[in-house]
């Protein structure tokens, strides 16, 4: 994509398109231009929190209805904004076109009324979003305290590896009645913007339209971030992904700003000895493992990378493991196009590391890895490859262990999802894996699937934390007077 793309700024229902600053353009990178956010900072921030009052004239049903109407307009066949975003993502995304198209076609699903209701109910509680909920107590005898979840002024520094991150952010912002400033990622500058523009086309003055802003600035730009990340302007920051971006943000932390990080994570896989029961079982395991590695072309933090297998570490065990490696590689090649394809920009550094393995004697066996088709690396020496942090582009690393214990100990707070086979092993180890730091335990093959998406993330509840939990308490006046005069509570 040689010509430059314009990435306008949306501030609460208004489009600003004096795109004067150029970004990107290095080796094959997208070139795009955007307005200078510094010129618009005073309007970008919501300086008076009471300006959020308009959101409270809406009932939850109004919000569901608004999102449902928005979802109907987010069809890839008719929405020009979304088509433009897709066009840019085709060039910037690590996902190939077929996988990417599938993601975009799924966007309206998230806006269906039943989906929005269940998401709000499970991730916050609709009653808490709608009003003051009494807290009955068996200890305290007075009138019950009441709690309500309020929206907050929040900057979202979102990831660009899949378009669903921006979509989820817009929906969460709406049902929590928050005011969002979304900082777009350079690898997907248009998707969230497309949603905001569709909202403007649909209902330019609606409060939900007027409480979403979408901007691009270069992460770490002090001229923007210093004034923005100020407790007078922003109460919460939700930061996804890269260590560097989170490190930038921590510089501005001070009392009054709540940082919610969805850290860079990696995921793991644990396969029990039952996988080797017979050849048909091994094939089934291989196909499910291929899904965990290959879905989204391994662009997600949920994808399998290092895979511990209770194959045994003796010669027979290694032979078993290599068979699983071979089957998994074959299964990877057969995944449906909309789920996974050979990677269109295979990481050259990773390729050089894989090429290096053939010089490591008999410590590794590599299936595939010739071009961009992906690879399964079998570590015959019982340790993950030294470049395990680089694993991407559909490259998995099988590590043999004699029992599941060794694998459990390798889990830590950087481990997000663990795909496990068989179910009994999952049940047996789930508490221990949680103590070690794992955050999501899922049947092998389901790591990259989010059919049931209204769940905590990275061991935290980011949506509850996006809210301000406000307490109202009623105490009898006479009782308080008695306390003041006699020191006795009533």
């Amino acid at each position, binding site marked *: 994509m040689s010509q430059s793309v314009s990435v306008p700024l949306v501030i609460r229902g208004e489009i600003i398109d004096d795109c004067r600053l150029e970004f990107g353009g290095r080796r094959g990178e997208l070139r795009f231009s955007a307005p200078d956010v510094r010129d618009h900072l005073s309007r970008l921030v919501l300086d008076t929190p009471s300006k959020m009052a308009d959101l409270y004239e809406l009932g939850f049903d109004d919000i569901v209805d608004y999102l449902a109407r928005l979802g109907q307009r987010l069809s890839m066949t008719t929405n020009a904004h979304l088509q433009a975003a897709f066009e840019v993502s085709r060039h910037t995304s690590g996902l190939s076109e077929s996988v990417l198209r599938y993601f975009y076609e799924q966007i309206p699903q998230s806006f269906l009324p039943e989906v929005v209701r269940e998401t709000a109910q499970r991730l916050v509680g609709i009653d808490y979003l709608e009003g003051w909920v009494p807290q009955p107590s068996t200890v305290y005898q007075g009138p019950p305290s009441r709690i309500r979840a309020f929206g907050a002024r929040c900057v979202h520094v979102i990831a660009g590896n899949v378009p669903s991150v921006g979509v989820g952010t817009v929906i969460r912002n709406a049902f929590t009645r928050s005011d969002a400033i979304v900082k777009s990622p350079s690898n997907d500058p248009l998707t969230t913007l497309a949603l905001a523009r569709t909202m403007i086309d649909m209902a330019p003055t609606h409060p939900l339209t007027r409480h979403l802003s979408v901007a691009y600035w270069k992460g770490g730009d002090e001229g923007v971030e210093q004034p923005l990340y100020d407790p007078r302007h922003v109460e919460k920051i939700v930061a996804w992904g890269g*260590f560097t971006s989170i490190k930038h943000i921590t510089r501005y932390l001070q009392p009054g700003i709540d940082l919610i990080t969805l850290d860079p994570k990696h995921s793991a896989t644990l396969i029990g000895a039952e996988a080797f029961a017979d050849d048909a079982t091994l094939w089934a395991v291989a196909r499910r493992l291929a899904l965990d590695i290959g879905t989204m072309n391994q662009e997600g933090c949920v994808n399998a990378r290092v895979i511990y297998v209770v194959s045994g570490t003796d010669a027979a065990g290694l032979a078993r493991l290599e068979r699983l490696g071979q089957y998994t590689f074959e299964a990877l090649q057969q995944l449906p196009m909309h789920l996974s394809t050979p990677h269109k920009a295979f990481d050259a550094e990773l390729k050089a590391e894989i090429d290096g393995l*053939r*010089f490591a004697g008999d410590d590794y066996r590599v299936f595939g890895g010739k071009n961009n088709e992906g690879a399964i690396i079998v570590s015959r020496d019982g340790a993950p490859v*030294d470049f395990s*942090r680089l694993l991407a582009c559909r490259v998995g690393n099988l590590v043999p262990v004699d029992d599941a214990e060794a694998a459990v100990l390798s889990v830590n707070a950087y481990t997000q999802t663990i795909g496990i086979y068989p179910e009994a092993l999952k049940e047996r180890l789930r508490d221990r894996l949680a103590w070690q730091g794992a955050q999501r335990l899922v049947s092998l093959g389901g790591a990259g699937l989010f059919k049931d998406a209204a769940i905590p993330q990275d061991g935290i509840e980011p949506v509850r934390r996006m809210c301000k939990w406000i307490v109202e308490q009623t105490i009898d006046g006479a009782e308080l007077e008695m306390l003041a005069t006699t020191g006795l509570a009533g």
Partner: protein
Amino acid sequence: MTSLYEQLLDDPLRYFDASYDQGYRLNREQRDAIHLRGLQKRFDALRGSVSVLGALASEQGIERIERIDDVVPLLFPHTVYKSYPLSMLERGQYDRLTRWLNGLTAFDLSGVDARGVGSIDEWIALLDRSTELRILHTFGTSGKLSFLPRTAQQWIDMNTLTAHCVRDWRGPRSGPDLLTQRLPMVQPGYRHGAGATYRGVDVMVRRWAGGDDNALFLYPDTYFSADIASLAGRLRAAQARGEQGRLELSPALLARREEFAARERDRPAQMEKFFETALQRFGGRDICLFAVWPILFEWAEAGLARGIRNVFGPGSLLMSGGGSKGRVLPDDYREQINAFLGFDNCFEVYSMSELMAGCPRCEHGHYHVPPVLVPFVLDPDSGAPLPREGVQSGRFAFVDLLCDSSWGGLITGDSVTMAGWDETCACGREGPYLHATIRRFSELQGGDDKINCAGAPEAHDRAVDFLLSRVE
């Protein structure tokens, strides 16, 4: 007497006996013939004795080299010399590390018994004692040291070649002859070590300076530890990912931490003393100085501030490089350094640990490929060789024909522009040369994973801090 062309055609190692500058007066046809014959000779000799080369050749179905480009599928990726699993070091399996190294050298290491070796330093010492190898280690690209199987003889040969380059680069016998002139050697670094910049020091002291009495080092008695370099590299990689908490340290390393800490604490004072001593002992005399630009600049800046200029003789020689990474130098840093030192005879060479035959820089800023190095520019995406003509940009690769006991073929991580195939550089030297725009691909991709020699001391500091922060 046969011509250099005939000598190199017979054996590229004959370049060690030649006038260095003559290597840049060969014509295209002669160079191509030397390259093709040299490739054939090295491949035929090494495919049977360097087992990983044999395996790669079998896998690629390559029996013989008919044309120069035939060798491209046989070039090793730059990861080859660090392809051992790190777990070998963590588990102290130095016998397995020896077996791994055995696959990369024509020497037979099967008689080396590395059981009981507890550290990289001990392993290197064992190889020094019991084999022809004098391996060198790098400072740890992306947290892992590369180990290159150089031999004792190769260090002597490389020393000869460098001396000849200094002597003949600007015309036959135009420069000092380091092998006879006994210039005092001044280096603000380690006297001992197997690190890329330290391994050759011993030969230099012996052959150039004529002994330690005529040399000055910052650490004259200290060995630069490969184990510390390894820790520093892994620490840097872990820091870059925010995973410092995951690093595990060996008890042997922890036990040595006080020693490292004391040395690091004393470093600024030692450095001051070193520079003082250099002025006292060698001021006004011609010297041979080795130092990276940032250290030189610090010295010059402090000296000039005290009104000190022209401290050494005009016939002195500076060997530098390493860029200015980690420190922003003013535009006129070289002028300031020259004014302070009192000479401007500086040699800069494009080289790397994997190269025996580096490429010296001419007055037009081009790095000239010597005739014993077969250069390639590869398409960065496909890896296919680009035509050996015109101006080509891509990934630099080479076969170093001076490597006769390991395979000299390597695909580098460097992005280069090469010219000179069909046009002569304005400096008059024939043959291919690289433009000054050399970058690492990893930097171009936004990464920065290389600790060059200029960065190593700083990384060392961090490693020591980290060691000290561990409460037993």
